[in-house]
């Protein structure tokens, strides 16, 4: 299990992380760009995600169709995602195809942004926005975060709106790319069955010429607040509520304690919320999570139930988070066992390891071997959780509800 992580930083600032394991039968590779919705201006809302789509739509030497067909020829399981803080492009391939996959993905990172493709893909994005508009809980999350974070960029919408996406121009997207996709703001990572020497050599050749420039991000902590808001929608069969309070950032040491606490209180099974709400048939979904962001973070309760039961369900959920230390030593050990098992099982596959390597670097500029993360989780005590709660006391709840019109 003790596998070494190799790290190299090219002269242009691109960080390369490699963890090779010959026991794997596949290899994962990905570019992790430290950019997302929170790095957009209001006018640019949605452009990070739109740009992510455009990276599949052509480079100076490949058309969109060339990219699609080559991904097919490589038998790659390839995809990308955009969040508030990261834009990630990744693929898993069999070892023989790794070199070609690395070349293709590296080429995609320098997109042509062809105007015709830009106009066509804009329609696809507007369809994606329409798709999520039909999912009420997604609508609640977007609006709750936007309100809760106030003017803080952590509350920015990933998809943007019909208006912002319709208005954005190809040149504005290019300007965003030129502001964010600096090699020093990107990590190239690989995990699984591949040759580290070849990977590093090819990375130098393929990415070494990218020009570096400085990239910043506002990583201030958001102001905590306590508000109550209701949103209404027609034809809603279910009601949903989100409760938000100040939580640990991705850099805060308290994140370990709070994620264990969130498992005890709100994991999808075997948690306090499960037993008090789902097991009893009151809610079809009830969870508590620690949402750790860059420099800031929040704790989040989510419940979903029929409209007539929402008051009762929210009341019970609040009672649980208002007595956060009301758990036994066995509850604590069980939560740790669940988390450790997830780390081990996810870490076994190249894609699972790739994601933790790349994202950890983007947030903390470090790499942690699995064994160290596991030891850290195992070491957390009730005292650690008590101390974390002194800093993040879970008393400053904002509440958002989605109800039928």
């Amino acid at each position: 299990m003790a596998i070494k992580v190799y790290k190299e930083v090219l002269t242009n600032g691109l960080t390369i992380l490699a963890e090779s394991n010959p026991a794997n039968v596949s290899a994962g590779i990905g570019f992790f760009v430290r950019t997302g919705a929170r790095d957009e201006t209001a006018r640019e809302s949605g452009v990070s995600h739109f740009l992510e789509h455009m990276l599949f739509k052509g480079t100076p030497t490949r058309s969109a169709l060339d990219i699609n067909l080559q991904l097919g020829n490589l038998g790659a399981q390839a995809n990308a995602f955009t969040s508030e803080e990261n834009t990630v492009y990744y693929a898993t391939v069999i070892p023989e195809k790794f070199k070609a996959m690395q070349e293709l993905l590296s080429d995609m990172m320098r997109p042509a942004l062809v105007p015709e493709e830009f106009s066509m893909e804009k329609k696809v994005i507007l369809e994606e926005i329409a798709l999520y508009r039909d999912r009420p809980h997604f609508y609640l999350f977007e609006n709750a975060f936007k309100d809760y974070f106030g003017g803080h960029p952590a509350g920015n919408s990933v998809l943007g709106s019909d208006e912002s996406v319709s208005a954005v121009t190809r040149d504005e997207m290019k300007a965003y790319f030129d502001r964010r996709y600096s090699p020093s703001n990107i990590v190239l990572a690989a995990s699984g069955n591949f040759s580290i020497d070849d990977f590093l050599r090819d990375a130098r050749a393929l990415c070494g010429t990218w020009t570096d420039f400085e990239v910043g991000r506002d990583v201030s902590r958001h102001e905590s607040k306590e508000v109550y808001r209701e949103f209404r929608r027609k034809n809603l069969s279910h009601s949903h509520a989100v409760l938000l309070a100040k939580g640990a950032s991705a850099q805060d040491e308290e994140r370990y304690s709070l994620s264990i606490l969130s498992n005890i209180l709100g994991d999808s099974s075997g948690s306090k919320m499960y037993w008090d709400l789902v097991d009893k048939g009151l809610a079809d979904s009830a969870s508590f999570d620690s949402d750790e962001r860059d420099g800031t973070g929040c704790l989040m309760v989510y419940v979903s139930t029929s409209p007539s039961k929402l008051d009762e369900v929210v009341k019970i959920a609040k009672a649980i988070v208002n007595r956060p230390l009301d758990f036994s030593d066995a509850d604590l050990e069980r939560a740790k066992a669940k988390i450790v098992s997830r780390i081990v099982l996810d870490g076994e596959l190249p894609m699972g390891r790739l994601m933790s390597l790349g994202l950890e670097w983007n947030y903390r500029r470090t790499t942690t071997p699995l064994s160290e993360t596991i030891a850290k989780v195992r070491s957390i005590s009730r005292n650690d959780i008590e101390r974390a709660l002194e800093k993040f006391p879970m008393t400053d709840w904002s509440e958002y509800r989605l109800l039928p019109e």
Partner: protein
Amino acid sequence: MITTHTLANGLSVIVEEMPHVESASYDLLIPGGLVCDPEDKVGAGLILGEMIGRGAGPLSSRQLSEAFDDLGIRHGEGVGSDRYAFSGSLVSDSLPRALELVSYMVREPHLAEDEIPNIQSVLLQDIDSLSDNPARRSMVELSKRYYPAPYNRPSLGDAEGIKGTNRATVHGLWQKLFSPRRAILSIAGKVKTAEVLTTVEKFFGDWSGGDVQIPQFGAMPRNDYFHIDSDSSQMQIVFASPSVRFNQEGYYDGKLAVSVLGASMFGRLFVEVREKRGLCYSVYARHGSTNDYGTVTAYVGTTPERAQESIDVLLKELHGLRGTVTEDELERARTNLKASLIMGEESPGARAGSNAQDWWLLQRVRPLSEINAAIDKVTVSSVDTFLASYPFKPCSILTLGKHTLSVPTGLIGEGR
């Protein structure tokens, strides 16, 4: 190394040793599922599936849940159309305890009456929340109309059936269906076969039960165009048409033909509907087969004003496939299928699942070389032979959205 064994009580056991991993997975399949629910109590099986995890053997509901969690066992208990399924992933040391817990659930569930109202409440909420996921709802609605009873039963059950189920119904189903006779237990991961067999014998060796009969798959209903009014932002368009069965000659011709058509990124639908015309975010076609039926399913979700063009392009691509598949397209589909098989080799969960599925359909486990040989046999001409037998018509189409669409005549008709 894969070995298969049959216990004296009929339970089939498949073990695959994967020395390069640290974890292990199990899959237990028991014939039954929603098709075996009483006709006026569709969803009773879902209640049984839930109750099994709420107290079994010496353990209360909470103790059972905690016993899994103490070892960090990721587990799931599900009810399918024709089976009850139990699966789990774990650090391999925990396998004996996991199998012990599964044996309690299968053999000695408490089926406590006072759990029923809570479970009914959650299942009814699930049905309600289907309208908040139009893509899923459209598939459920099409399946109801496309397949013959009882194979058309909705995966969430029906509200009346769930409300009408009592403890006697659930207990009766469990007694009738939960038998080792045709059940399959598949295990893969960092395990030693001999040790696994000893454990399995210990927990399942004296499990007894008779043969279980699953309803026959009947004649397909007439194909048709269906529409459901919905005030949603997007219109859902779903398509289904007969294809080759799993146990028939030409299965891989069908699978690869549908991949040429419907694969993400490189498939014709993705390129023509999304990439070239920007009509949608999500579009695909899939091939699904059992020994009883084969189905090609296609989907596109789009805004109402672009729905007619979307369905026109979708149908044109579906029905224009025959005689036009190129060598390059076939090679791409072949490479992808083979790569996904190779990549599945490193996940114990994927291996346990596919071994169990092979046994379910074939009563044996195929080596990868046999599957690869079958995939290699497919040629452009054999794909065309498949498309001549299965031209993706007659077909059924369902739309869910603000208005109906015009569907060319001659596509719908008698089922086969």
